[in-house]
Structures are given as structure tokens and as C-alpha cells.
């Protein structure tokens, strides 16, 4: 095996590890903010795989779109649901410090995202199995202690065991089928190194309609998002009123001059 091939294998393994460990951390950590960060690691890993597959434009696009665009939206939403005025604040705070529950993630008390990702990465295939048992146990504990609080605090549905089983079966089935299947006929052709030019030509020529359709879709999407998300001018439409983080001031009371004087003197004390 030549040096170049070894380098390619090394890059592939590292990037695959980053993307898989990131996705797994996203799915299993208990802190929503951290799942966003794990998701970013996963996106970066996949972008690296794209570049390794000599789709360099797509790799850059992946980073710019997913991380620069969507992840910022996601993190904004995560922070929004932790709004200090919101009722979710306490739960979120607790889960941030306290726990991720662990598919291979150590459930240490410290906020140490990098270390956790390393841990998650080390035991590649085995960690899904280990996590499965951990899932069920953690879930039952959550159910036993305090029903109302337990329900609110857990980030996962009661069918988590089944979901883990389904995901595991899915992965095992697909992997098995892929490994057992005879190889696809591979082409030895080398792609054009200037992929941006090729893609641009295709977008403006053969796939013009798809390009225009995607543009229209984005436009309609922007309209829809603005229409749904904006606050209404009509005060009786409660669902659209602006979200206020501070409690509304108490209604004004009609008071005579004597009351004001009395209250002022009391406050003076």
C-alpha cells in the first residue's frame, strides 16, 4: 500500500469517525445545545468525506449551508426555548450541567464536549450495543422518580427502546446487505478537477428547471416563514402577539391622592 493510499484511508477513517460520532452524540446527549455542536461535528465530517470523494464544491456548500445557515437557526431555536421567561429554562439548565445519558458518552458532571466526543469515537461499533441497554435502564429510572417532573425532563419519548432497536436493526440490515452484495461496476474514470464549472454548466443548461424550481421553493419558503413567524398587528389575535419575556405589569388601580401618599410613606419605611 502506497503512502497516498494510506493517507486516503487515514483521512477516510478520521472523517467517518467524526461524522458518525457526531451524529450519535447528537442523538443521545441530553443537552440540546450540545447536540447542536455535535451536529456541527457531523456536518464537518460529511463535508470532509465529500471533499475526499472529490466533490469539493459540494463539501464547501455543505459547510456554508448547513453550518452557516441551518445550524445557526437551530442554535437560535434552542436558545429561544431556553428563554429566561420560558418555563423550559429550568429543565434545560439541568440537562446542560447534569446529564447526557450515555451511549458511550461519559455522564460526567463537567461540561467537556471535546472529551466526550473522543470517548464516543473510541469504541466505534460496540457503542450502539452498549447504549441500548443503557437506554432502557435510564428511561425506567426517569419514569420511577417523580412522574410529572420526570416526564418533562426527559428529552426522549417512551418508545426510545424500540427506536434504538429499530435504528440498530436498520443499520445492521443495511450494512449486511451492502457487505453481502456483489460490488457495483466501478468506473476508473477520473472526475474533472474543476467541478464548479461543470456544475454551473449543468445548472444553467440541462437542469435549468430544477434550478428555477429550487429558487421558487426558497422564495415561497421565505414568504411562509415570515408569514408564520411574524407578530400580528391585531391585538385580539392572541396566537400572534409578540412574545414578551417580562411579566406584564399589574393592572393600574384607580387610587385617590390619599392612597398614593399612604403608599409612598409605606415605601419610605
Amino acid at each position, binding site marked *: 500500500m502506497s503512502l497516498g493510499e*494510506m493517507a486516503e484511508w487515514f483521512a477516510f477513517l478520521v472523517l*467517518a469517525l467524526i*461524522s*458518525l460520532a457526531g*451524529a450519535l452524540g*447528537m*442523538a443521545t446527549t441530553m443537552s*440540546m445545545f450540545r447536540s447542536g455542536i455535535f451536529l456541527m461535528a*457531523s456536518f464537518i465530517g460529511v463535508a470532509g*468525506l*465529500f471533499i*475526499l*470523494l*472529490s*466533490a469539493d*464544491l*459540494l463539501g464547501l*456548500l*455543505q459547510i456554508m*449551508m*448547513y453550518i452557516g*445557515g*441551518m445550524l445557526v*437557526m437551530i442554535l437560535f*431555536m434552542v436558545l*429561544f*426555548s431556553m428563554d429566561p421567561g*420560558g418555563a423550559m429554562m429550568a429543565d434545560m439548565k439541568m440537562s446542560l450541567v447534569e446529564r447526557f445519558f450515555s451511549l458511550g458518552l461519559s455522564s460526567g458532571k463537567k461540561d467537556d464536549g471535546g472529551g466526550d466526543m473522543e470517548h464516543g469515537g473510541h469504541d466505534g461499533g460496540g457503542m450502539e450495543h452498549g447504549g441500548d441497554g443503557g437506554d432502557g435502564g435510564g428511561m425506567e429510572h426517569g419514569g420511577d422518580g417523580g412522574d410529572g417532573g420526570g416526564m418533562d425532563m426527559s*428529552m*426522549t*419519548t417512551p418508545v*426510545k427502546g424500540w*427506536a*434504538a432497536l*429499530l*435504528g*440498530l436493526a*436498520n*443499520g445492521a440490515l*443495511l450494512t449486511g446487505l*451492502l457487505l453481502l452484495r456483489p*460490488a*457495483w*461496476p*466501478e*468506473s476508473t*474514470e477520473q*472526475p*474533472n478537477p474543476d467541478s464548479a464549472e461543470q*456544475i454551473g454548466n*449543468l*445548472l444553467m443548461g440541462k437542469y435549468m428547471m430544477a434550478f428555477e424550481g*429550487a429558487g421558487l*421553493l*426558497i422564495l415561497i419558503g421565505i414568504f*411562509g*416563514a415570515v408569514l408564520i*413567524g411574524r407578530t400580528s398587528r391585531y391585538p385580539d389575535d392572541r396566537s*400572534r402577539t409578540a*412574545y414578551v419575556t417580562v411579566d406584564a405589569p399589574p393592572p393600574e388601580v384607580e387610587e385617590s391622592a390619599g392612597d398614593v401618599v399612604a403608599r409612598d410613606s409605606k415605601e419610605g419605611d
Partner: protein
Amino acid sequence: MAVPLTAYLVVAALLFAIGVYAVIAQRSAVMILMGIEVLLNAIGLNLIAFWRFVNPGDYSAQIFAIIIITVGAVEMGIGLAIMLLLYRNRSSVQVDDYAELRG
């Protein structure tokens, strides 16, 4: 190409499995959207791997991948806007709280 096609496909399959788990098991709508993004990533990886190994001369696969990214972005924007609205109404983005939408 030292790394075979199957290796990339296995990575994509595992990503898909993790995404399925996240979509089903997570309770918060934001987390479900994240799971969907992982699913889309797995699909894109599949497309690009097949493009590179089976027919690297035809760049149509990358157009598909770009379209997938676009649709993912729009879906994310609309989903987050809906979530914002739901949060304003009931201060919750947990999908269990909207179980009456089952119809």
C-alpha cells in the same frame, strides 16, 4: 481510490440509522429536525459516493445533492417558524404536547 465504495455506503447507512433513531426517540421538535438533517446528510453521501465510483463523468448527482440541501434548508426554515408559533401559543415545542394533531 484506495477506499472502496462499500466503505462510504456503510458510513452513510450508519448515519441513516442514527438519524432514524433520533427522529423517533427525541421528544423536542428541534431535535427531530436535527435528526432529519442527519438523514438528508446520509442521502447526500450516498449520492456522491455513487457518483464518484460509478459515473464520475456526469455531474448530475451533484445537482441532486444541491437540490437536497436546498430543500433541507427550506424545510428547516419553515419548521422553525412553525415551532416559534407553537412556542408562543403554549410555551412548548415538545411534540407530545400536540398529540391532538393526530386527528
